[in-house]
């Protein structure tokens, strides 16, 4: 098994994800500079966080239009797991791999802090190691994290249990106070229709070692690794 971690100019969580996959979870992973384009031989992809192309134009917009994204789309079409974290989530929505859009936070500043999330479904390649409705802790760090989608899309997300994480309080309740960015229905992460592409704004890689304050995020990567082992 081998997981590709895509590096665009301005990506800055690539080494963090590499560390967690290799040293903490213990699976093979490799960073791929965006000019390499070919993802043959990889069983999964992570598009990590950062500021690809400086967030110039619109967060994720330029990265979504690089040739390597065609390879990511091909992999996704084969049913392999594709994970977009933070800026990676923005890239995946810009690339059309996920619905909706991520716009500037309601309070229009960068926000970095721990947040509680509720796991809405365990029926994805990324959440099999969680319990449904379990409350987990991961940090956020973004300025454009306000999830927006049209009503019809929202209805589809709800109906098909495609919302994977919501911002909640410590007890697991969805409230406006704990919504850090004004996301519709406190949505923090969603999957595509075939459930193998996940995008989320919180950083699971920053919550994968207890010494850093939480290791809840590690199970997301472990779930992904398990899925690859079983299916590919």
């Amino acid at each position, binding site marked *: 098994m081998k997981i590709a971690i895509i590096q665009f*100019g301005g990506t800055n*969580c690539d080494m963090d994800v590499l560390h967690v996959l290799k040293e903490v979870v213990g699976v093979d992973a490799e960073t791929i500079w965006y000019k390499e384009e070919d993802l043959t031989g990889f069983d999964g992809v992570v598009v990590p966080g950062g500021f690809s192309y*400086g967030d110039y134009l619109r967060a994720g917009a330029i990265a979504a239009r690089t040739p390597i994204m065609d390879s990511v789309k091909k992999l996704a079409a084969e049913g392999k797991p594709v994970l977009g974290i933070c800026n990676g989530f923005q890239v995946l929505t810009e690339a059309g791999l996920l619905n909706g859009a991520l716009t500037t936070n309601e309070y229009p500043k*960068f926000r*970095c802090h721990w947040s509680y999330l509720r796991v809405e479904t365990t029926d994805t390649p990324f959440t099999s190691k969680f319990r449904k409705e379990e409350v987990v802790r991961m940090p956020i760090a973004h*300025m454009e994290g306000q999830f927006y989608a049209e009503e019809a899309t929202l209805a589809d997300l709800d109906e098909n249990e495609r919302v994977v994480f919501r911002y909640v309080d410590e007890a697991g309740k969805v409230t406006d106070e704990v919504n850090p960015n004004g996301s519709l229905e406190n949505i923090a992460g969603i999957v595509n229709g075939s459930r193998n592409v996940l995008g989320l704004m919180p950083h699971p890689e*920053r919550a994968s070692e207890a010494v850093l*304050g939480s290791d809840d995020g590690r199970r997301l990567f472990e779930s992904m690794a398990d899925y690859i082992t079983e299916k590919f």
Partner: protein
Amino acid sequence: MLPEEDLKIIKKELGREPNLVEQGCFLNLWSEHCSYRSSAPLLKTFTTTGENVLIGPGDDAAVLKFEDGYVLSIAMESHNHPSYVDPYNGAATGVGGIVRDVISMGARPIALMDPLYFGPLDTPKNLFLFEQIIKGIAGYGNCIGVPVVNGETLFDRQYSGNPLVNVVCVGLCKEEDVITSIAKKAGNKLVLAGSSTGKDGLGGASFASRDLSESAEANDRPSVQVGDPYTEKLVIEMTLEATEKGYVKSCRDLGAAGLGGASSEMAAKGGLGARIIADAVPQREPDMNAYEILLAESQERMLFEVAPEDVDAVLALVEKYDLNGAVVGELTEESNYKIEFRGENVATIPIALLTEGAPTFERPSKAPEAREESSKPESPADLKQALLTVLSSYNIASKEWIYRQYDHQVQLRTTVLPGEDSGVLKITDKKGIALSCGCQPRVTLLDPYAGGKTAIVENAMNLAVKGAEGLAIVNCLNFGNPERPEIYWQFKQAVLGLGDAARELEIPVVGGNVSLYNESDEFGTAIPPTPSIGMIGKVDLEIPLPSSFFTKAGDSIVLIGETTSELGASEYYSCLGATEAGKAPAVPENAPKLIKAVIKAVKSGKLSSAHDLSLGGLAAGLARMCKTLGAKVDLNEISGDLQAEELLFAETPARALLATSEPEALQEILKDVPYTVIGTVNGDALEIKGKDFEMALSPEELTTAYESLNDFMMG
């Protein structure tokens, strides 16, 4: 233009009149900013060596020995004036500059800290400066993926026309990957990489006169550079890859005085000469002349010394990372610094004269007339209200609104987040670093020597409460116009205070910068003397680190150190508007002992909380620790002859509050220092009683006061 005296020296040495390009080189390289002309003799008084110092002052950043073959790089710089003119870009490029200093040593930047000093937020302009400067730091630091892990923010009327933006950057690499700015070999090529060069930032180190630039247009441009963090991130990755592959023989980032500064200094340090071909520099606008190409301070550029056979490989990396780059010259055996432009030689300067020829000197210094102390304010009628006022001061209140905007967790090292006494980062599984920064400008104004000492002791205590011994100090010496003898006296006294306290604690001063002439035409004021420092210490991650807040009900609260009566320069007096009243507290002689005792107590693993006492004194320290739990405190035992307000608000340095469930176990550790058990962690309110007073603050009152700045900014 060059000062007459300088021109005389240059003419004598050259035996001729320097041409315009040459004059431009001298003007910039001999500026106060580049040559530390009037500060160098004083800076020599610092002790800069120690068993862990591999590279001290003089290179782009210092390098310290750490553990397991790792070394740390650290540097500190100010970006004050640009941040007033263009706060967003001024602050952003301040971050960019210090980060490049660290990568110039071959180290990956892993942490930033920002001590910031503003005018009060009661004018639209100060509010604008505050918001934009923080936005600039966040915009740049977040994008390049370097966490901001600690900081300091102080407000004082005298910073209104001249806010201060100081930045500390820490880097990490393996000892064998360290590179320096000492050029190695004649014949090696000089490769410029990063952004292209424009006319921006001309004369940042000095000023570009109309005659010299021969271009009125340049004068109309802002002299503040514009930052591009996206390019900076690429420059970081490209530089580190080139370094790790061994292609870089020496390296310097382009800062003040641009390519002219970096290339001449690198060559001179290696005892070599250099030949620069100005036309070869990738330019972002047409018709630049040699002067502009050489001295522009366009951001995000690095200069590498590369062996001829490695040039292609380095240029391939430039290509890989979508940067601009070219061979712009070479190192020579000559003792001259030569510049060619359009096929002609446009400058030939003896390189040692250019880089080391600026005369350094001490300026006249004069102690100000003995300050007339205004009468002491009367004791407050309502002590509780006084405490709530002090707690609500933006200097003491939570800075969450600020640090929320900074990514403080990227790179997976941050184990203690901003909002505590010092930030802690994991380096290896067992060892980490603690970082703290700041100073006490008001103390420094009343007593510059004590202010210098206080800065060191307070930061050392910030580290001590996380069990960290200081490894090294960097500084940013922000003062007014040194040509005024009273200001030069402040500067000198503060430097001596810093140096003495650092020696007493055996922590070397390994680098920094000097920012003089911080005066405001607009307000006719000079800043309070601000000898800001950054301190780095080593943390043992195998022991549980105490929190800055109370975490365990029933624990005993122990006050370390003695409280004296001076209230001069305190936050309490400042809240009363009595900034000129009283004397500033001196640093107690046993400060090193107190700091060592706290470190030992933390290392015993028996503490649940530990917090340094500074602004707002004992009362503010206690209130600050009551985040989720309250405390019941009886100060009768330590009252002595102190008035209630002295007991509560005096800011005597070298004190700390500890909480422990085993106070008797600390007896042995604390046997050589004064300490008192003053109460217990209890309930959710803060109750304090003394000889003739008693008060209780509810959790709501504490929170409202503590959140004052956040509520103001969000409201």
